[in-house]
């Protein structure tokens, strides 16, 4: 009786191509990924089912948590905003401080403490309870001024780019996103909305997380 020969094939697969593709994709994702900037006040945003993404450019973010307010200006408009605020409040900033301000993402101190904040290192700045928030009550509404000056600075930046003949630029008002903590009480948010509405900024974004539970 003839023996049935089972041909023994090697079970090993050539992985060279797979490895190539994997590393190609890996390098792509590594390069496109942007490092998450440390925030002075991490907030836990509420969740929603709306899938709209925040615009990538020209968005200023107001973070609200524990009744403290922090403001992030888009990088292009930072220098202009600071110089406008400095003129308005009669404060002068050195070249070094302006450079540091442009490199700083979000901040939350009254304007008279900003110099002290800029003198600190990044780690010291983002330490918990280091920054106590921008004043936004009706007595010293600095937040409203920051937003107003940021909008003007952004407009100036866009105007300059249009004047340079950059045809890809379309004029749009600075978008404002409110990034509130889910546990924040409504009057605080209402106050922020009122500040925005006082300067005729009636359209803005609410930053939310993605809802994954069955709602």
């Amino acid at each position, binding site marked *: 009786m003839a023996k049935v020969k089972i041909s023994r094939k090697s079970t090993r697969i050539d992985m060279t191509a797979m490895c190539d593709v994997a590393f190609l994709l890996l390098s792509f*994702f590594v390069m*496109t990924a942007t490092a998450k900037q440390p925030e002075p006040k991490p907030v836990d945003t509420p969740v929603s089912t*709306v899938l709209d993404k925040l615009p990538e450019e020209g968005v200023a973010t107001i973070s609200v948590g524990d009744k403290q307010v922090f403001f992030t200006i888009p990088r292009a408009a930072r220098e202009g905003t600071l110089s406008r605020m400095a003129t308005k409040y009669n404060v002068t900033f050195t070249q070094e401080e302006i450079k540091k301000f442009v490199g700083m993402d979000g901040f939350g101190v009254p304007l008279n403490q900003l110099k002290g904040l800029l003198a600190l290192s990044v780690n010291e700045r983002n330490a918990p309870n280091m920054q106590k928030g921008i004043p936004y009550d009706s007595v010293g509404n600095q937040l409203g001024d920051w937003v107003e000056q940021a909008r003007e600075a952004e407009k100036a930046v866009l105007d300059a780019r249009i004047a340079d003949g950059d045809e890809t630029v379309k004029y749009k008002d600075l978008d404002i996103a409110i990034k509130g903590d889910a546990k924040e009480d409504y009057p605080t948010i209402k106050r922020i909305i009122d500040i925005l509405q006082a300067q005729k900024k009636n359209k803005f974004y609410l930053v939310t997380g993605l809802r994954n539970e069955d709602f």
Partner: protein
Amino acid sequence: MAELNTGGDGGKGGKVRSKKSNPGVDLTAMVDLAFLLITFFMLTTTLSKPQSMPLAMPDKDPKNEPKDNTKIPEARMMTILIGKDNKLLWYMGKFETPTIAPTEAAYGKNSIRKDILKNTAIAKANTDKPEEEGLIVNIKASDVASYRNLVDILDEMAINKVQLYAIGDITPAEIDLLKQTGLY
């Protein structure tokens, strides 16, 4: 296969044979690692982009106060009052003469969403153009409401495709109503 053909056979009648070592490298671990990192970067890049909810508020200019000439069809008007402890109260029509009396509700698909859908049907039955006109929702959050409650209700508006909604200021009478029902 990834192994290189090291040849070497067929020189001098196969007499001198050097030991053939296999130069192929086992890539399994490398591929594993690469895919792990890909997954990590893919998820972190796409998930870190924040979601956002566009919100348009009605213009509030102290110079042009509303002259009370816009007629709001009461039959299509629903008011949601947000109270404490994740509870809310809603009524249809005017506050003084509601077509549906204030009803307590909770968030989620089993409570407020059913009410909104029911009221949408009522609103559509009360209009000549059910295609274009539907429910009008006025969201009034009290001072004890949390931001999460507001976003939840705005989310409900998006889920139920309510075309017209606005965030309004709560009146003292409505706060009293919330107090009576123990939601303030």
